[in-house]
Each structure stands twice: as C-alpha cells, then as structure tokens.
C-alpha cells in the first residue's frame, strides 16, 4: 500500500462518490432555491440517484472474484455491489414518495440525510473490516435516527426518533463490544482475517461464543429479528411514512448484507453450530410477527409486524448455510424491497387525502382510486407470496433452500406462517375492495412523483415475479463470493 489510488479502488467506491455529489448538489440547491421551489429537490435527488445507479451499473461492475481494496477496509465484490444498487434504488423511490409529504418533501436536509444514510449502507454491504463495518453502521444509523424523528412538533415522530436512537445506541454498543473481544483474542480486525484466526484456534470457545452472540444482537436489531424487534412497530408508526418504508426495506437489507457476509466469511467453521440458533430465531421472528400483525388496526403497525415476519422468512435462507440459501436471501431482499416500498408508497399516498393510517379507513378505496387499489392488490399479494408476483418466487427459493438443507421442518413452519400472512393481507384487501364507505365520492389524489414511483414498483414486482432469471443471476453472483 504505497498510498496511491488506482482505478479499481475508485470504481469500488464509485457509487458512494457519486452519492456524495448528489448530497452536495442538494445542499447547494437547498440554499439557492426559494422555498416554493424546494419541492424540486425531490426530483433532483431521485434523478441524481437514478443517474448514480445507471453510471454504477455501467462502469462499476465488480470482478467475479472479489478483491480487498482501500487497505483491506472494503471488499469490491458482487455482494456489495448488488446491495448498493438496491439501496440506491430504494432511496430514489423514497425521494419520489416523500416529495408531496408536508414538511418533509420541501426540506433539503431530509434528502441529504437520506443520501448520507444510503452511503453508509453501501459501505456496510462492502465492509471487510470490523472497524469499517462499525463506522458504516453508524453512518447509516445516525441520519436514520434524525429522519425517524423528523417531525419535531409531532409527538409520535419524536418518540419514534428517540426510541430508535436509544435502542440503536444500546445494540451498537453491544456490537462493538463483541467486535472488541474478537479483536482482543485474534489480533485482527479484518473479517477475512478472523476466519483464519478462528481456524487456528486463537480464540477460546467461551469468549468466541459470547462475542458472536453480542454481534448477533447488533445484527438482529438491524434486521428486526425477535427478540430485538420491539422498536420496529413504534418507530414505523411514528416516523414519517416514507422514512418508515426506507427503514423497513433498505435498512433491513443492509442488515442482512452484513449478517450474511460476517457469518459466512468470518465464522464459516462455526456455521454448523449457529445454524440452529438462526433457525430458532427465524421461527420465533416469523411466528411472532405474523400473529401480532393479525391484531393491528393501524396499517403502519401491521406493515411493521409483517416486515418482522419477512425478516423471519429471510432468516430461513440464512439458516441453511447453503449457497442456494444465500441466493434466496438476496433474491428475497430484492423482491421484498420493491414490494414493501410499494406498500408504504400506497400508505403515503392515501394519507395525503385521508390523514389516517387506520385500516378501516381504507374501506371503499377501490371505488375512490381504482389504480391505487390495484397497486395495493399487487403489493399485498406479493407480500403474501402469490404468483405471478416477486414474493412468490422469493418464498419458493427460501423454502427450497430449507428443503435442500434437510430442514423440512423449517420449510413447513415457514409455509404455515405464510398462510397466516395471507390471512391478514387479505383482510386489508377486503377493506379495499369489499367494504363501502360514506365518502366514496372524494377521490384519492395521487401526485405525479408518487404515481411514477408506484408504477415503477408495480412493474418491478411483476418483472421480478415473471422474468426472474436475471435477478436470480444477480443473487447468484452475490452469493457465490461467500463460498
């Protein structure tokens, strides 16, 4: 390492560099533009993010075999790349959805914080070193704490932000404690160096297990797995809805990126020991999430519990410790990201007219806004795992991995859970399509950016569900570097 920067190193960071530019542009225009034009910052952010996405897709494709760059701080590989593309896509959609939300879409700092958080997520997915990983997690989380509490005058939003901060700070303290123990015993902070240290028996069994559990706590919080899921419903309910959508998709995906990289690369020799632990967490997560989702009256809380349940399904893929399992994790996250963003996008749009998140206020939506109702049908059936939508393929892959790993019991619990899921998603659809309401004359207005976002997402759900081969290839390339 002579201190010179070669082109590979630049390309490895190309998405983050471009994102930094986007944030800078937004900052400048936020100062230059007058208040009535600031809604345009949303177009600027979304456009910049899409441009970043396209440029990265063209120029920054990593080599098939990953390489360590930047003094082994980051790894330039497909796993990181696929996830970065996902985060940027999610952020662009979130920007579009936020534009017409009062007190949010006209605030430059909102967009900047979101872009900075996206940079952090990208670094999380690419980190090859525990120190880098911790910094990336904090870069992601701190803007998200602020975003969750963005409505300073709204009690629920501030509660949401503060709760998220407290939980987040606590779990990241545990996480960094786990990292420090590993470093203390092995003498290395490199994720890839750790594997060798464990193999060589440098770390005694007891502290190893202890620190792995501490790390697991940190990651479980990020992906909202039981028993570290408590924050999710309260934070989602109180946070501005687009932020809740972003938290439940991109942020969760970032957690899973880190989880699979850390456990598959740093602790491969432990995989047989912890696969059962993950399987148990997975069962608890999906069962609890699904059962609690049934009883919710608020759609954001319902989606929060449903997103907990989805974390459980994804953990099924992790618990298999097979290549197909990791492929299914990545694929699931792709399908889940577009689907759940669509679901939250509909909630954002509906709220603008009705100022309500109660499920019963969705009565008669199919008469008030047939297009929006159809998008909701697509999104919710995809969440329920129905073809021809993305969620179906994702679930089939996850359960296939479980069957392949001889964990048929886990697959069976998974499919039984997906029936519970179907039940409460259908209940919401019943409100949308079946029940009548008194204000069917008042149409639900869908703003242009929200319309673009929802059309893109609905199309994406169908594309992932029908033409699933390219996304599967992507997931395969991402997963193959773990083995």
């Amino acid at each position, binding site marked *: 390492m002579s201190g010179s920067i070669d082109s590979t190193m630049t390309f490895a960071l190309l998405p983050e560099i471009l994102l930094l530019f986007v944030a800078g542009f937004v900052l400048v225009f936020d100062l230059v533009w007058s208040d009535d034009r600031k809604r345009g910052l949303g177009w600027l952010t979304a456009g910049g993010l899409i441009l970043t996405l396209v440029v990265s897709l063209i120029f920054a494709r990593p080599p098939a075999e990953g390489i360590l760059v930047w003094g082994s701080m980051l790894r330039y590989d497909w796993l990181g790349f696929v996830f970065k593309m996902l985060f940027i896509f999610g952020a662009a959609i979130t920007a579009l959805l936020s534009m017409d939300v009062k007190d949010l879409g006209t605030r430059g700092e909102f967009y900047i914080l979101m872009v900075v958080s996206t940079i952090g997520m990208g670094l999380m997915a690419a980190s090859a070193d525990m120190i880098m990983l911790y910094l990336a997690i904090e870069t992601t989380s701190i803007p998200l704490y602020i975003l969750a509490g963005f409505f300073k005058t709204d009690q629920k939003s501030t509660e949401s932000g503060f709760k998220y901060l407290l939980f987040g700070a606590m779990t990241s303290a545990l996480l960094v404690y786990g990292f420090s123990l590993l470093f203390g015993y092995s003498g290395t902070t490199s994720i890839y160096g750790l594997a060798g240290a464990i193999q060589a028996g440098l770390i005694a069994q007891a502290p190893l297990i202890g620190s792995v559990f501490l790390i697991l706590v940190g990651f479980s919080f990020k992906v909202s797995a039981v028993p570290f899921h408590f924050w999710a419903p309260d934070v989602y309910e109180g946070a501005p809805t687009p932020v809740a959508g972003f938290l439940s998709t991109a942020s969760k995906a970032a957690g899973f990126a880190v989880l699979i990289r850390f456990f598959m690369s740093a602790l491969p020799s432990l995989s047989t020991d912890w696969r059962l632990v993950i399987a148990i967490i997975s069962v608890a997560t999906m069962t609890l999430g699904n059962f609690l989702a049934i009883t919710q009256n608020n759609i954001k809380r319902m989606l929060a519990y449903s997103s907990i349940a989805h974390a459980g399904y994804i953990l099924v893929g992790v618990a298999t410790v097979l290549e197909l399992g990791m492929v299914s994790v990545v694929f699931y996250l792709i399908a889940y990201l577009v689907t759940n963003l669509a679901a939250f996008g509909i909630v954002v749009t509906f709220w603008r007219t009705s100022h309500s998140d109660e499920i019963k206020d969705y009565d008669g939506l199919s008469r008030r806004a047939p297009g929006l109702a159809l998008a909701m049908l697509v999104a919710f059936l995809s969440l329920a795992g*129905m*073809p021809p939508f993305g969620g179906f393929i994702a679930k089939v892959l996850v359960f296939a991995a479980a069957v392949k790993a001889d964990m048929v019991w886990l697959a069976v619990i998974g499919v039984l859970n997906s029936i519970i899921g179907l039940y409460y998603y259908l209940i919401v659809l019943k409100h949308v399509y079946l029940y009548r309401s008194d204000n069917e004359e008042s149409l639900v207005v869908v703003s242009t950016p929200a319309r673009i976002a929802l059309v893109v997402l609905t199309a994406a759900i169908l594309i992932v569900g029908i033409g699933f081969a390219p996304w599967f290839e992507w997931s395969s390339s991402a997963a193959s570097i773990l083995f």
Partner: protein
Amino acid sequence: MQFPIISVIVFIPIISGMLILLIPGERKTEIRVTALAASAVALGLSILLYFSYDIEIAGYQFVEKYTWLQDLGISYYVGVDGMNTPLVLLTGIVMFTGVLISWGIDDRPREFFAFLFILATGVFGVFVSLDLFMLFFFYEIAVFPMFLLIAIWGWKVTREYAAMKLTLYLFVGSVVALVGALAMYFTSGLGTFDMIALEGAAFPVVFQKFWFPFVFLGFAVLGGIWPFHNWSPDGHVAAPTAVSMFHAGVLMKLGAFAALRVGIMLLPEGAKFWMPFIILLTIVNVVYGAYIAMVQSDLKYVIGFSSVSHMGLVAMGFATLNREGMIGAGVQMFSHGVMTALFFAVVGMIYDRAHTRLIPELGGFSKKMPLVTVAFIVGGLVSMGMPGFSGFIAEFPIFMGVWRMQPWIAIVASISIVITASYIIRIISKVFFGKMPEEYADHIHDVTVLDKVALVLLAGILFILGVYPSIMVPLVESGVDNILRLLGGA
C-alpha cells in the same frame, strides 16, 4: 415454427383481462363485449386444439418449451395429452358460458371480468404445464382471484366467511404439496422441474410412501376430497353464478388433475401403497356427499354437495389405478364440469328471479322458463348416470374399475346413484313442476337469449358425449395408457 396454440390459449384470458382493466369503468357494454370476444377466441382455439390432437401418435403434443431459469432447471414447458386435452376444452366452454351468464353483473364488471380471466389463465396454465414449478405458479394464480370474486360479488350473507375459508383451505393444501414437490426436486438429483424427466427419476420407495399423502391430499383438497371438502359447498353457495360454474366446473378438476399429475404419476409406488386407504375416503365422499345433498333445502347447497359426491367418483376412479377406473375418471372430470356448470347456471337464473333458493318456497318454473327446465332435466339425467348422457359414459367405467378392485366398494358406492336420483327428482318435481307461489307469478320472466345460448351449449355437449362417446373416450384412453405405463402396467 408451428403456431403456439397452447400459449395463445393460456395467455388470451389474462391479456384480455388486462385490456379490460384499461377500459373506463362506466363503459360497461364495451367491457362485456371484449370479455365475450376474448372468451369466444379461447373457446374456438380450445376446440381446434381438441380436434387437432392426434390420437394415433398419442403422447404429448403441441409441446412448447422455453427456459425460464436455467440454474434451477425451471422452464416454461407446456403440452397436451389425452388426459388434459378434454380439460382445456372444458375450461374454454365454462369460460365462454360463464361470460354469457354474467352479462347482467352491474357492480364493477370491469374488475369482475379481469379477475375471472386471471383465474382462467391460471386454470389453463395448470392443465397444460409439464413443468412442476410452472404448475404451482399457475395453480396459485388460479386460487387467489377466487377470494376477490366471491368476497366482492358473492352472496351477501356468507361471502366473507366463505371466501376466506376457501382461500385458506386451498392455500394450505397447495403449500403442503409444494414442500413435497421441492423434496422431489432435490431427491431426484436431476436439477430440473421437468415433470417428464421426474417421471423417470425412480424415487426410493420409502420416499414415495412418505410424501405421497402430502402431495396427493394437498392437491385433492381442491378436488373436494373428504374430510377436506368443507370449503367447497360454502364456496359454491357464496359465489356469484359464473364463479360457481368456474369453481365447481373447472377449479375442482384442477385439484384432481394436479393430484393425478404430481401425486400418482410422479410417485407411483406411493400411489400403490396408499390407494386402498384413499379409496375409503372417496366412498365417504360419494355416498355421504350425496346424502347431505339430499337433505339440503337450499338449491345451491344441493348442487354444491352433489359436486362433492361426483368429484368423489373422480378420485375413486383414480384410486382404482386400473384402466377402466382411470378412463371413467378422465371422462367424469369433463362430464361433471359441464354438468355442474349447467346446474349452477340454472340455479343462478332461478335465484336472480325469485330471490330465494329455498326449495320449499319455489315451484312451477317450467311454465315460465321451459328451456331452463329442459336444461336442468338434462343435467339431472347426467348426474344420475342415465344412459344416453355423458354421466353414464363416465360413471359406468368407474364402477367397473372399482368392481375389479374390490366389489363391495362398488356396491356401497352405487347407493349414491339412488340418492342422487331422489334429490334430483325432488327438485324437478317441486321447483319446476310444483305450484308456483302467487307472489312470483307476475314478475318471473323467461331468461335472456344469451342465457339460452349458454344452456343449449352446455346441455348439447352432455347429450352429444352421451350418444357418441367415441368423441372423447379413445382420447382419454391414450392418456391413461401413459399413466398405466408409469404404474408398471397395473
């Protein structure tokens, strides 16, 4: 390259459904005409397919195969043989007549036809698929529109309950079967979902014995097998007329067909082991279903339970695992599909006019609706297995097959014919020839021309098949040969 007739049949409904969604909701006539045109094309093509199938060559014909996902061996792979060609035709017929019958739907017809057509694509897709993954894909597509169709346009009293019950039942069945299918995929070691390849996988006998009940019963839930038939009469009753027709006419065949294709054909050793037990379940279906039908006072429940009884005969035919039983079951799927569509159409017409389906409150409809009466009587004769109608062609071989397997089962099962006759004759005498209550006398009118076209078409098919069975039996036989080959010529 030959004309991809199967793909066109499969995708015409869903594509026209999407087009219908683009028509503004208030232009209802255009919506209906588009729906009718699309279903007419689908029917026309399925008739063409039926008569172009070459029985001399047999095997899978009009095969199309495109890779869907190379890595996992998933492909879009379709083809027809002697078993599924009649079912494709059946779906075409029910779809066409269903649209005719639904002309009067006035609440959001756009969404109604769109969902109905999505359902139709799912059904066509399952019948023609030769790829296990694809079969599941279309199977689920066929299941979920039912929920909306029943919940939105169904009978107000029970629709929410029935829709949810039906969907959850069917979903449980299909996901259980899905786990079994995944187990087959990995155990075969072939890395493909191609069902023809999997037929040659020779799964270990223990594996087959373990998984057969899950796969077979998982699908047979949709075929209405006892004790998992409970969703079906409730679903029939709550559904709007066209959906009942689809549901009983086609959807239940979907379950039976998938149970055959995936259960029996891929796990033949498991089938041989379990069938003696499964045939006991089907006796309950046949006899108990008929008995329950007899004691119902709601006309639609009568037909609903009669479907359970007749679908029991299909499952019983499969369970014999011999030539006669299989042929009978194959023909019965078609015959019962048309017959029950006819029944539900008639019941719908009566309900639309009288606003009740309670048999004691009805009477004398033959004077007002002569054609409907004739149609119902034809259906009734089919249902009793009267010679000269398709029911005889189907049920006689089934009983022969059962006799060959175990005579006492045939004797017990044949009780159902007597019970069926009793409830059919009771309905005919009371509802059509009894005395019409005064309150109906003024406002009951004959059915529309479109309704008549539908009834004549359905009744005509039942009659033609009855007097000229060679139009279908050799075709089904060629399909059965293939199944028997897999079963080792049993």
